[in-house]
């Protein structure tokens, strides 16, 4: 398998806090990788650097061989990196359908003028994109929610819509920041199913941050563990589970860092 995303020795500090410290991670095409670690381990910061929200102080990130270390988020999105947020970031007053159509934005070519005239190119384009969005609606089983404003939906469903918007980008790499946080058992199961199906059937590469160890160990091909900004383990779920460093980070050592699964 070829490497799709290469993270090389990246570091990021905020003031005196070293959030991410020389972390490297190679992600192969079609992988489903989970990044785990206690709160404040630097997981979200790492994701933010991949999606271009932060730029690393040191190190290099390449996607498909192209350097994206200092690229703007919009450029990175155009190259096929989509993400969801820990705290849902949907347009609450807009319908599910509109939020998803917005996810197609990077693929739309009609200019302001063309869109104003609408008939012709813009209309054809809208139909094409709507078709893709309908596939996603079908995939996520949210046919009954098309016209509902996202703000009125239950939390678990908002998470699902947010995944849908990320999928609307037709991403090569999907970054999911705690897609199951705050969900109940059934919603978690559904979400795990969707993530697996995206990965298996559409071949989308997935990087997942998640606290629920059951889900992580169950669905991931590989698990990378961060602690205090540094990567302490990287391997199959079984390897990671058996790694003494990981056990120490999670279960705490003499200094008393305790397990926090639902932070």
């Amino acid at each position, binding site marked *: 398998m070829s490497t799709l995303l290469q993270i090389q020795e990246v570091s990021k500090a905020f003031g005196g806090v070293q959030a991410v410290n020389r972390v490297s991670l190679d992600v192969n095409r079609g992988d489903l990788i989970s990044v785990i670690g206690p709160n404040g381990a630097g997981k979200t910061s790492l994701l933010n650097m991949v999606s271009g929200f932060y730029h690393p102080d040191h190190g290099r990130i390449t996607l498909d061989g192209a350097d994206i270390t200092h690229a703007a988020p919009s450029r990175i999105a155009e190259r096929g990196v989509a993400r969801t947020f820990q705290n849902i970031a949907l347009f609450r007053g807009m319908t599910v359908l509109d939020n998803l159509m917005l996810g197609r934005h990077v693929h739309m070519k009609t200019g302001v003028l063309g869109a104003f005239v609408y008939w012709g190119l813009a209309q054809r384009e809208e139909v094409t994109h709507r*078709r893709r969005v309908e596939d996603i*609606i079908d995939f996520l089983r949210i046919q*009954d929610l098309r016209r509902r404003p996202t703000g009125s939906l239950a939390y678990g469903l908002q998470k699902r819509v947010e995944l849908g918007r990320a999928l609307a980008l037709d991403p090569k790499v999907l970054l999911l920041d705690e897609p199951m946080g705050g969900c109940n058992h059934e919603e978690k199961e559904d979400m795990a*199913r969707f993530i697996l199906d995206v990965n298996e059937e559409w071949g989308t590469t997935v990087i997942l941050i998640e606290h629920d160890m059951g889900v992580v160990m169950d669905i991931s091909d590989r698990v990378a563990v961060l602690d205090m900004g540094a990567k302490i383990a990287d391997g199959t779920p079984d390897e990671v589970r058996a790694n003494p460093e990981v056990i120490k980070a999670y279960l705490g050592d003499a200094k008393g860092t305790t397990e926090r699964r639902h932070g």
Partner: protein
Amino acid sequence: MADTMTLPRYLLRNARQFADRPAIREKDRGIWQTYTWRQYHDHVRDIALGLAALGFTRGGKLSVIGDNRPRLYWSQVAAMCLGGVSVPVYQDSIAKELAFVLDHAEVSVVVAEDQEQVDKILALKSQLPALRLVIYEDPRGMLQYRGADLKSLDEVEELGRRFAAEHPGHFEREIEQGRLDDVALFAYTSGTTGTPKGAMLTHANMVETGQTLAKSEDIRLDDDWLAYLPMAWVGDSLYTLVVNLMVGFTVNCPESPETVQRDLRELGPTAVLAPPRIWENMLTGVQVRAADAPRLKRWVFEWSRAAAERAEILKSEGTPVPLGLRLRLALGNFFVYGPVRDQLGLRQARWAYTGGAPLGPDTFRFFRSFGVNLKQVYGSTELTGLVSLQPDAEANPTTAGRPCPGIDVKIGERGEVLVKSAGVFKGYFKNEAATREVIDRDGWFHTGDAGFLDPRGHLVIIDRAKDVGALADGTAFAPQFIENKLKFSPYIREAVAFGHDQPFVTAMIAIDPNTVGSWAERRGVAYTSYNDLSQKAEVRRLIGEEIGRGNETLPEAQKIRRFLLLTKDLDADDAEMTRTRKVRRRYVVEKYAPVIEAFYSGRDSVELTTAITYEDGRQGTLRSLVHVQDVEGAAVRV
């Protein structure tokens, strides 16, 4: 066209006669996708031949599990084309029920809608020795599934096309071999009493019942029908499979179970069948929206509603509607009734049925007064789903309608409804003893329902026959009939009527804490708990009035004379009810023996000691002095 043909022959006819007419639609990706009768036929043929290639032979059993989908209907017809039996199962069955039915029916092929259903079946595989093949409709998530006994429906159709090239004419020859008395469908009864039983229905049962329905009701070729009720329910098989094949109208499958309401509105079907629960939900929806509307709109709504209800009452009494009221109706139709019907997706419905359980008269009248031709229908699985229905001019909330032409109904011992028709099933599969219990020597099917024929010739169902008793003076006493009248009141959640071998009828009532609670709040009656609320004098008076209203529609001997309000709701956890909220009569009679004693000894209070089970499993007792109340206007005759 022969008068009666097997279902597959109707398919061949439709493919010739209605080739380019829409047969079935499915909403997919937000768009109604149409399949013509020719396409319907071709898919059925390909699936059938694919099944033949995979070893499905005459007498084989094929099960479908999932939501209403064209391809699941086609699979059922495909099995019938090969002389096989379709065994639709409820998609929300729990594993135990599912295993029982699939095993009992000796199902060899299951067509499952999606991965979720496939998983269910695969988990049961070890318990299903007859099962040889699982076919899935939606390939989503199935990538990792392997096995020679697992195929997608697309693969099966492809196999079928190859098989057709090697065996030309096979499909038609198989259909040719079909006989009217071949079993076409196993309809499993839901099993409220013991294990489910598989009613065997033949092509003749279904086709002749279909013809009966088509003769009694206005069904047209250009009708639109929404198929949203479970495929395992005989009513869906009758209408969506049988009558559709016979008449050739268009069946529409909703996008998902959650979108039914919206799809209904979008489609505007020409006929609708729904259980009471759905009519009640629709009415509540309308009322909530009316209550939330701005004052002017609300006023217009109420003004029109009042007019509609008054007119409906006049009409049912046969009194002519005065001109002024007619004018109000015309305005109301334009501003209110029409738009409401449109919102509910009932604007184009020429007729609508309710059946399966009693529907409250208020709900019934609401829909009728708003111009929905709502009528009652009665049937049972063993009778292919049809016994009687109400002609347009005779719709009313109390009867089950007039027995359809060709269906003989008589009342047997203990008031049991007996039926003889072409729809009487062949018997329960592998259960000769149960069959003999319900079909007598002369071919009458014993429905187990107690009822009578009213002077108009309408069938009235009052209760399950085994619950019907007699008052001390010999008058028949049907507890459920009385309880249903009481439960039409929004304040009464549960009711248990007593009277067997007693001089008069009494009832224990469990109030609905929500409606009674808000009623009490509006009147400034303070209360602390269910127990407290139920024993307020004001609440006793309220329920007394409600019972008095119920009494108005009851024959003199069956009027409720005395009642008491329970200090807690009847509960399945306390074994007073089944999980499906049916009263366990024998147990309740034992448990509440002191209450019954108090009712009939004329005492005006009774100490009620009830063992209650808390949600965490702890047991406790609740002891309280409960008033026994006489119902006003229905004093005890001594």
